[in-house]
């Protein structure tokens, strides 16, 4: 140790990186891992930074409250919704870990976990949505992102940066849909306007 020269070759081949799938908008990939069995647990994560309070009385700015929601479709009909007002789907397969009203905390501030093996057989698609409850646009929110993670392998399946994404208050993020026996992911990333998922239902239903 110590004596060996440590000037590195810049073109040193990098080590292997974990297999991930970076989704371009509209691209579709199968979530069945080769030889690894199908996808069972998927988590939607949504993160952003809280408004920094300034001055003695704090900032007059309103807290930023982004919300993650999942709309459940059976064919073209809404069968169920998981959002801050209903944290668990009726069948129990989709669970929201709770509403974060300010963005305080690191990493994912809101999560929705989907157990695909428990989703009722008649459900054909799950559409993941982000909305800004207090109406601030994504341009006004620091470090906002949303992502889909395979909870079994922790591989990130899709990720969108919301900050700087324009003067929108909502985004239809992605959909998981049945294709034969397996679930597939379709990235959508379509900006929208809406403080809750209800406001965005027409845009959401277009992806059912």
């Amino acid at each position, binding site marked *: 140790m110590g004596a060996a020269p440590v000037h590195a070759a810049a073109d040193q081949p990098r080590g292997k990186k974990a297999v991930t799938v970076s989704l371009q908008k509209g691209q579709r990939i199968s979530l069945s891992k080769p030889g690894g069995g199908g996808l069972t647990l998927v988590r939607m994560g949504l993160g952003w930074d809280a408004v920094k309070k300034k001055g003695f009385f704090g900032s007059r700015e309103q807290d930023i409250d982004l919300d993650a929601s999942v709309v459940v479709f059976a064919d073209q009909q809404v069968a169920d919704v998981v959002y801050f007002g209903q944290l668990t789907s009726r069948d129990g397969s989709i669970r929201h870990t709770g509403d974060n009203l300010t963005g305080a905390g690191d990493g994912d501030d809101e999560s929705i976990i989907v157990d695909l093996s428990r989703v*009722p057989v008649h459900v054909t698609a799950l559409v993941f949505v982000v909305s800004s409850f207090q109406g601030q646009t994504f341009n006004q929110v620091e470090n906002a992102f949303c992502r889909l993670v395979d909870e079994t392998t922790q591989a990130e399946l899709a990720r969108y940066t919301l900050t700087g994404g324009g003067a929108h208050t909502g985004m239809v993020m992605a959909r998981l849909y049945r294709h034969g026996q397996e679930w597939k992911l379709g990235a959508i990333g379509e900006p929208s306007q809406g403080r809750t998922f209800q406001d965005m239902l027409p845009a959401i239903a277009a992806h059912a």
Partner: protein
Amino acid sequence: MTALVRGANAPLRATRVTVTHTCARPVDLSALLVGRDLRVRSDDDLVFYNAPVASGVRWSQEALEIDLAALPGDVHAVLVAMSLADAAPFATVPPPTVLVEEHTFAMAGLAEETAVVALELYRRQDAWKVRAVGQGYAGGLAALLVDHGVEVDDPGPRPPRPPRVAPDPVPPPPSEPAAPGTSLPYVDRAWMVWEDASRSLDSYRGSLEHALAVRDEEVTGRAPRGRAQQLMDASLERLTTDMAQLAGELAAHEGVVGAEVAPFAGPSWLTWQPPEKVGQGMLLGHLDADEVSTPRIPLILRVPFGRPVWLNRGVVPRDSVAFAWSLVTRFLAAVPPGAVALDVIDPTGLSGAGWINGLPRPVLDFLCGGGVASGPQAGQRLDRLLDLVDLRAISGEEDQLLGGTPPVRLVVVFDVGAALDEYGDRLMRLAKEGPPLAVPVICVETETPTGESVRAMRIKMAGNTLPSDEGTLSDPWVGGTWTLTPDLLPDAALDRPPALLTHVLNTHAKVLG
């Protein structure tokens, strides 16, 4: 050797330094070449197990060798990170330590973190210095890297998330989840089985309904045939699998649970002994779903219960009386002798509780408040109980004040309709305020119907309403319809003291001497 404290810095003597570490569990070292903003210029500035070499830095499992003179000019600092190889946090190991030249830095106080920026080697004019950083990251190496501008594809292992979020508030709520690592208490298991069964059934019904709509489309030729049948088959298969699994979970407990949560007909009652501490709960009966076959799910109420229990009148008034005595028996069986006394209030004296007054004197006086309170005594008994509740509400010293009254007072109000007519406000207050203060109340609807009574409605809303015959109730998760078959003492509806209840009362009295 000199020990650095968090935030301290010291000059480095050599331009080639080696950073090593000690930790009780396997850790990985990483180095980040960063600019003044403490962010990497590109992903190539990360040196770790998957990329062991960069300009000026060489990685090995044991050490980082850093040639400070060979670092690119725009690298302002090298951050040395340490991350645990498995998911357990630093809280589980003694403080990890890093060493560089004669400096050591022991990072005390780490808790949930699984990665930490240990050191910063930084330029200071033309020399290099080392700073003890010790900044932990609960999000692990991935979070640490992301924070310094590395684009991470794989967020790395995380501690497993809890499988369930807190359930929506439901009456009656299963409280106090089991401590991690212990096997689930039967009460929790029974409630989870009911929730799972309710959700599975709801899912099945949803699928079936959708399948019928699809079939309509198929019949009219608007959709190709086959999918409706497929949906029906698949949903039934799912339901059958789920119910078999739930039945298995319940069966694993059968025969090994205490009497208070076992059917009266079960073997547990043959060997009942007064418990030393309060049992888990009391079995109310078994639940069956309409239309489909499910396991018979035990409905168990925790003891002591924090909300009033209301027993609806059955087909005949005796149904609710029999249910009440059955619950009293279970309650007494679940609580250690000396910890509980029974107050029976029967304003009209028509509910067949008179046999209580025939119990031996010591049993009657110490366990039953002197006997059944009827007529004017009913009001007096309510007043005494309310005094107790008020004392408990303002102080925890009620035992001294009341001369050693057993801490739990189980109150049974027969013919609650008549009682409400006579003592409405007092009874309402006792029903609402008593249960949280160890004065659980069971309201029994017998002769006098309470159909239109607002007060009755208020008590029902505050508590748990149970049917006394084979009546229906809704599950608290999806509002599905279930039939509750109460588990009853075999002789509770007869005109004589129920044998098992008398036995439990006598046993309590005997233990108390």
